[in-house]
C-alpha cells in the first residue's frame, strides 16, 4: 500500500519518458496530474490508517525487499510512514498535484515532446521526493536525496538552449554535491559508530546516551549531516544555487525550489531529531546558521528587482527560520513552518508565474505595476500568500512563525529571537514591496537598459562557474525598443517564454489575460490553504491545542518496543506541546505574538508608505547609502567571493596543475617517454641488421661457439 505512493509518479514518469513523444499534450499532462492525484489519494488513506493507531504506535511499515545483505550488514528497502512522514507526503502529493495541474496550462506553449519531457521530470521528482521522506533508513533516504538533486538539475536546465539556464543547473548540481559529500560522510560515521542506518534503531541507540558535552562523534556526524542539509535546503554557505535556480520554469520553482525539495534538509534534521538533540554543539550551529541565513536573505530580498528572485531569497530566508527552529530544539515548530510555508510559497510562486505568463516573460518588477485590475485572481491569491508569509495574524504563516519565535525566546536565545523579529519585519516589507510594485500604481517601464553591469540584476546570467559579465547580455534588448509603444513584447527576450511571439495585439489591455482555469484552480486552492493551514497548529496560548505539534511529537522521540512514546517524548524534551512551554509560557507567548504581529503590520505599513505613497524615498535611501545598496543588490558579492576563492583556484589548479602538469607532463610524458625510449634503443639496435649475409653467418657462428664453449668448459 505504501509502495503505491511513490510508484504512481514513477509510472507517470515511465510512460511520459518512453512514449511522451507520441502522446498529445492533453494525455501526457493529464496522466502526470492523474498519477499525482492517485498518489495523493493513497497518501490520504495511509495517513488515515496511521491516525487510527494509538499515538505511540503510529507507524506503518512496508519492507519491499532486502536491498543489501553483506555479512552482518543487512539493509532492507523499507518504506515507513510515521507522523512526520505523513505530513511530508501529504504536502508533496497534495501541493505537487496542484502544481502539476497548474503546469498543464503554464507550459502549454511548449511543443508536445518538450511538454512530455517536462512532465516526466516532474513526476520523477515527485517519485524521488516521496522515496526521500518514506525511506526508513539513511540509504533509502539518500537515494531520494540524490534523485531530487538530479531532477532539480534537469528542471532548472529545462530550457537548456539558454546558456544561463544550463549554467544554473550545473551550479545547483555541483553545490548540492558538496553538501552530499558531507552527508555521506556523516552517514558512514553513524554506521561505524552504531552499526545501523535505520532511523528508529539509531534513535533507540542514541537515546540512552547523555547529550554530548564535548565535541564527539555525534557532534561531528550531525554536523556533517547538517552540511548536507545546507546544500539541499539552501543555507549559508551553500545557498547560492537557489536564486539561480529561478532559471527553470516557474512551476518548478514553486514545486522544487520552494515547497518541497528544499525542505529535505529540514525534514532530515527532524527525522534525526534524537541524534541532533544529543549534540548541543551542532544544534547551536544549526540555530545560528539558520538565523544568519534568514536575516541575510531577507536583506537581499529587499532590493532585488526580479519577481522570482525576491521570492527565491524569501524562500532562503524562510528556510532559515525552519533551521532556527530545528536548532533551538523546536522540531515541531520547524516542521509546522515547513508545512505552512509550502502552501503560501507555492501560492506566491504560482502567482508570480501567472504574472510572468500574462506579461509574456517579463520578470522585472520595475516594468510592472497596476496589474491589479487586469489580473484579479492572481492579485487576490498573491495578496493572501503575501499576508500569510508576512505573518499577519490568523493566517498560516502567523502561527508557524510565531511558534518558532516563541520557542526561540523560550529556550533563552534572545539574540536569535531579535534576529528573527528583524527578519520578520524584512519579510513583511519586501513581500509587500513586491505586491505594491507589481500590482499597484501605474504600469511602468522603469528597468534601465543594462549598460551598468553592477546595477542590472543579471537574473542568474552570472553563476559562479561562469566568467562572462552581463554587460553584453543579449537576453534583454535595449529598453527603448519597447518603451514608447503600448506593446509589451520583448521580441527575442526569451524565445521559450510562453506565447512570446504568438499573438501581438495592439493595446496592452487586451493582452493581460488572467490565469487560465487550470492555473486559477491551483492558485485559489493554495490561497485557501495559506489561510487555513495554520489552524492545524494553533498554540495553546490562544485557545488552540497545537494538534500538529502533538501529532508530530512521537516522530522526534526514540521509539522502542517496550517503552512508549509518552515517556520518550519527555526524554528528548519535545517542546511544541510539551510541558516546557506550559509553565511561564502562555502570557509570554501572547505578548510575543503581539510583538510579532505588530512587527508584521509595521513592515507592511512601511512598504505601503514607501512604495505606494513616496517612491522617491526608496531611491533616496538607495542614493544615501550607495555602498550598502550596491552590496545588497549584488547579494553581498557572495557569488563573486566564491568565484574568486573557490571556483577560480580550482580552475587554475585543474588547468595549470592537473591538466598541464599532471596530465600532459606525467601521464602523457610516461606514455610518450616509453615510446621514445623504444625508438632510441631501436635506432641503435637496427644497425646490427646490415643486410650482409656473411655478417649474419659470422654472428651465428660466434654464438654457436660461445654456447658450446660454455657447456663444454663450464
Amino acid at each position: 500500500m505504501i509502495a503505491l505512493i511513490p510508484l504512481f509518479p514513477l509510472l507517470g514518469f515511465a510512460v511520459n519518458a518512453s512514449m511522451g513523444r507520441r502522446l498529445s499534450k492533453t494525455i501526457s499532462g493529464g496522466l502526470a496530474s492523474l498519477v499525482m492525484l492517485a498518489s495523493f489519494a493513497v497518501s490520504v488513506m495511509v495517513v488515515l490508517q496511521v491516525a487510527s493507531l494509538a499515538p505511540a504506535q503510529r507507524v506503518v511499515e512496508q519492507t519491499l525487499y532486502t536491498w543489501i545483505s553483506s555479512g552482518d550488514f543487512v539493509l532492507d528497502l523499507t518504506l515507513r510512514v510515521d507522523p512526520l512522514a505523513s505530513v511530508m507526503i501529504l504536502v508533496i502529493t497534495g501541493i505537487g498535484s496542484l502544481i502539476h495541474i497548474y503546469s498543464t496550462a503554464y507550459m502549454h506553449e511548449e511543443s508536445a515532446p518538450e511538454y512530455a519531457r517536462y512532465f516526466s521530470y516532474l513526476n520523477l521528482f515527485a517519485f524521488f521526493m516521496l522515496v526521500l521522506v518514506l525511506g526508513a533508513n539513511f540509504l533509502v533516504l539518500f537515494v531520494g536525496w540524490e534523485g531530487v538533486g538530479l531532477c532539480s538539475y534537469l528542471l532548472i536546465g529545462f530550457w537548456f538552449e539558454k546558456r544561463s539556464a544550463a549554467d544554473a543547473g550545473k551550479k545547483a548540481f555541483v553545490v548540492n554535491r558538496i553538501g552530499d559529500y558531507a552527508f555521506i560522510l556523516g552517514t558512514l560515521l553513524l554506521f561505524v559508530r552504531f552499526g545501523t542506518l535505520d532511523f528508529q534503531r539509531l534513535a533507540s541507540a542514541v537515546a540512552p546516551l547523555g547529550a554530548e558535552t564535548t565535541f564527539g562523534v555525534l557532534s561531528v556526524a550531525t554536523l556533517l549531516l547538517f552540511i548536507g542539509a545546507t546544500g539541499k535546503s539552501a543555507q549559508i554557505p551553500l545557498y547560492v544555487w537557489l536564486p539561480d535556480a529561478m532559471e527553470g520554469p516557474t512551476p518548478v520553482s514553486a514545486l522544487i525550489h520552494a515547497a518541497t525539495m528544499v525542505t529535505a534538509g529540514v525534514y532530515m534534521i527532524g527525522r534525526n531529531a534524537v541524534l541532533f538533540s544529543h549534540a548541543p554543539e551542532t544544534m547551536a550551529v544549526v540555530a545560528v546558521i539558520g538565523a544568519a541565513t534568514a536575516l541575510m536573505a531577507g536583506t537581499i530580498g529587499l532590493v532585488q528587482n526580479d519577481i522570482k528572485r525576491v521570492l527565491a531569497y524569501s524562500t532562503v530566508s524562510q528556510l532559515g527560520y525552519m533551521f532556527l527552529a530545528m536548532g533551538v530544539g523546536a522540531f515541531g515548530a520547524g516542521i509546522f513552518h515547513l508545512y505552512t510555508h509550502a502552501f503560501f510559497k507555492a501560492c506566491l510562486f504560482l502567482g508570480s508565474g501567472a504574472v510572468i505568463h500574462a506579461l509574456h516573460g517579463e520578470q522585472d518588477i520595475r516594468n510592472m505595476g497596476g496589474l491589479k485590475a487586469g489580473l484579479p485572481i492572481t492579485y487576490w491569491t498573491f495578496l493572501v500568500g503575501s499576508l500569510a508569509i508576512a505573518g499577519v495574524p490568523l493566517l498560516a504563516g502567523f502561527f508557524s512563525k510565531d511558534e518558532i519565535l516563541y520557542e526561540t525566546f523560550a529556550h533563552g536565545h534572545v539574540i536569535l529571537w531579535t534576529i528573527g523579529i528583524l527578519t520578520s519585519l524584512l519579510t513583511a516589507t519586501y513581500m509587500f514591496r513586491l505586491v505594491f510594485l507589481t500590482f499597484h500604481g501605474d504600469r511602468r517601464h522603469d528597468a534601465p537598459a543594462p549598460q551598468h553591469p553592477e546595477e542590472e540584476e543579471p537574473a542568474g546570467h552570472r553563476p559562479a562557474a561562469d566568467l562572462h559579465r552581463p554587460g553584453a547580455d543579449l537576453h534583454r534588448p535595449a529598453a527603448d525598443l519597447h518603451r514608447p509603444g503600448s506593446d509589451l513584447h520583448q521580441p527575442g527576450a526569451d524565445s521559450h517564454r510562453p506565447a512570446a511571439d504568438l499573438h501581438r495585439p495592439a493595446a496592452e489591455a487586451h493582452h493581460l489575460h488572467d490565469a487560465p482555469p487550470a492555473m486559477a484552480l491551483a492558485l485559489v486552492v493554495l490561497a485557501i490553504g495559506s489561510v487555513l493551514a495554520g489552524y492545524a497548529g494553533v498554540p495553546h496560548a490562544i485557545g488552540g491545542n497545537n494538534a500538529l505539534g502533538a501529532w508530530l511529537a512521537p516522530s522526534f522521540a526514540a521509539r522502542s518496543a517496550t517503552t512508549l512514546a509518552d515517556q520518550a517524548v519527555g526524554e528528548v524534551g519535545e517542546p511544541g506541546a510539551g510541558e516546557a512551554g506550559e509553565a511561564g509560557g502562555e502570557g509570554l507567548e501572547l505578548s510575543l505574538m503581539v510583538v510579532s504581529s505588530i512587527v508584521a503590520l509595521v513592515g507592511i505599513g512601511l512598504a505601503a508608505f514607501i512604495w505606494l505613497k513616496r517612491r522617491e524615498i526608496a531611491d533616496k535611501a538607495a542614493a544615501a547609502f550607495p555602498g550598502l545598496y550596491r552590496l545588497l543588490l549584488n547579494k553581498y558579492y557572495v557569488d563573486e567571493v566564491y568565484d574568486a576563492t573557490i571556483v577560480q583556484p580550482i580552475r587554475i589548479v585543474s588547468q595549470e596543475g592537473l591538466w598541464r602538469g599532471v596530465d600532459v607532463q606525467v601521464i602523457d610524458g610516461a606514455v610518450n617517454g616509453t615510446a621514445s625510449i623504444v625508438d632510441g634503443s631501436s635506432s641503435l639496435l637496427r644497425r646490427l641488421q646490415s643486410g650482409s649475409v656473411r655478417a649474419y653467418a659470422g654472428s651465428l657462428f660466434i654464438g654457436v661457439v660461445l654456447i658450446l664453449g660454455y657447456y663444454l668448459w663450464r
Partner: protein
Amino acid sequence: MIPLGHYLIVSAILFAIGTAGVFLRRNLITILLSIEIMLNAVNLTFVAFGRAQGNVDGQIITFFVMTVAAAEAAVGLAIVIGLFRHRESLNPDAFTSLKW
C-alpha cells in the same frame, strides 16, 4: 683399428676448413662448396660415433644429411643463378639490400 679420436680430429679439421671457407671466400659458389665440406665433416663424425658404439644410428642420420645437402645444393645453386642474373656478381658483399 683407428681410434675414435683420430676420426674426430680429421672431422674437426674439415669443419674448420669449411668454416674458414664460408667466412673468407668472396665467391658464392665457393661458399656453397665450403658448406658442403662442413656438412661432410659432420657426417664423418656421425659415422665414426656409430661405428665406435656398434650401431647404425650414425649412418642413418648421415643419409638424411646427404639428402638435405643435395636439396640444399639444388636450391642454393638456383638462388646463386638468380642472384647472378640480377647483379652480375657472385660476391656476397654486393647483396646487402635486405636491411632497414
